């Protein structure tokens, strides 16, 4: 009993000490934030941004949406590296663990099944539309890829074997497709115009669309794989529809 009391008292003491520490920390953070807030207040808001520069070059970019133009043309190099970051996350995840997902989700309710069956094709459609829309309005590879990823998550939590039926090698190809195509187009541009990612003006729109489609597929697969949480070399439950082959496997 005595030792327990002792431990309890120690824990309480620790809590008290932590409280003092917390208060100090809180005070410091408040000071910091006040300083930063004042600075934000002071910074004049009238500095012209890069908006004019973007607008003046917009017609050479091959797309009508200014965000897409910045993302994939003017600052395409950033986006190239960023796609690599996503892929790196998957490689890192795969190096860490096996996917804990072969455990059968046996008690999927019929309602869930039905909803997923209805939703997933719709989500593919929305994703495709978002990618297409990226050239003139808000949208693009990342938004489309996010929707695809959500569809993938739905498929994973429901007992539909579509995603799990994709062989590991094919999954790898799907994951690398976007980044590799991006680099490929970048090098293609290097040979034609002398600049990395310097799209020829007349084909710029099409090249950007091509990159966006490939990247959307890869991003969708990436997000699903991250959700699955590990490398896919597990004993797969023998699926009865081995016909699934494409990256965004449509379900029966």
């Amino acid at each position, binding site marked *: 009993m005595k030792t327990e009391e002792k431990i309890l008292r120690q824990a309480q003491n620790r809590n008290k000490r*932590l409280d003092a520490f*917390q208060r100090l*920390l*809180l005070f410091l*953070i*408040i000071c*910091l*934030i006040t300083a*930063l*807030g004042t600075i*934000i*207040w002071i910074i004049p*808001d009238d500095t012209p*941004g*890069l*908006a*004019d520069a*973007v*607008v003046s070059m917009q017609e050479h970019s091959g797309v009508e949406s*200014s*965000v897409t*133009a*910045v*993302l994939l043309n003017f*600052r395409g190099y*950033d*986006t190239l590296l*960023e796609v690599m*970051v*996503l892929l*790196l*996350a998957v490689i*890192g*995840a795969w190096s*860490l*663990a*096996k996917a*804990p997902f*072969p*455990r059968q989700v046996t008690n999927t309710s019929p309602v869930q099944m039905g909803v997923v069956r209805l939703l997933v094709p719709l989500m593919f459609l929305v994703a495709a539309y978002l990618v297409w829309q990226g050239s003139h309005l808000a949208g693009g590879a*990342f938004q489309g890829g996010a929707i695809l990823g959500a569809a993938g998550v739905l498929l994973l939590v429901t007992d539909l074997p579509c995603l799990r039926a994709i062989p590991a090698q094919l999954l790898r190809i799907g994951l690398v497709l976007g980044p590799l195509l991006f680099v490929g187009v970048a090098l293609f541009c290097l040979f034609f115009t002398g600049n990395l990612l310097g799209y020829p003006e007349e084909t710029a729109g099409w090249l950007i669309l091509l990159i966006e489609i490939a990247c959307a597929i890869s991003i969708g697969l990436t*997000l699903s794989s*991250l*959700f699955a*949480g*590990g490398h896919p070399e597990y004993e797969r439950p023998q699926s009865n529809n081995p016909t699934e082959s494409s990256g965004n496997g449509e379900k029966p």
Partner: protein
Amino acid sequence: MITTLLYSMTGLLLFAMGFFTLIVHSHPLRKILAVNVMSTGVFLILVATAYKPLGMGQIDPVPHAMVLTGIVVSVSVTALALLLACRVQETSNLDLPGRKKQGRIPEESGQ
């Protein structure tokens, strides 16, 4: 002006809250969430810089693109961090810094 300021201050506040949580709480999940809140705060400030009231000129698309990049980066890092945290809890007898001894966190049900 006031809109930008409002959003920027909210962003700063989120940043501060996240930072406080990150240091004070030791549970890995809270730490990951705290970092996410922090980055959301930064993105909010960044988006606010792009804002222009209607008719005051073009909205600056560069911060938008930067935020998009930042979100993607943050998603990937979060996923990796979550996986690492799970992995540590699954495989180790080592206690994560904030894990209570009484097993407040139920053991993962295995593979």
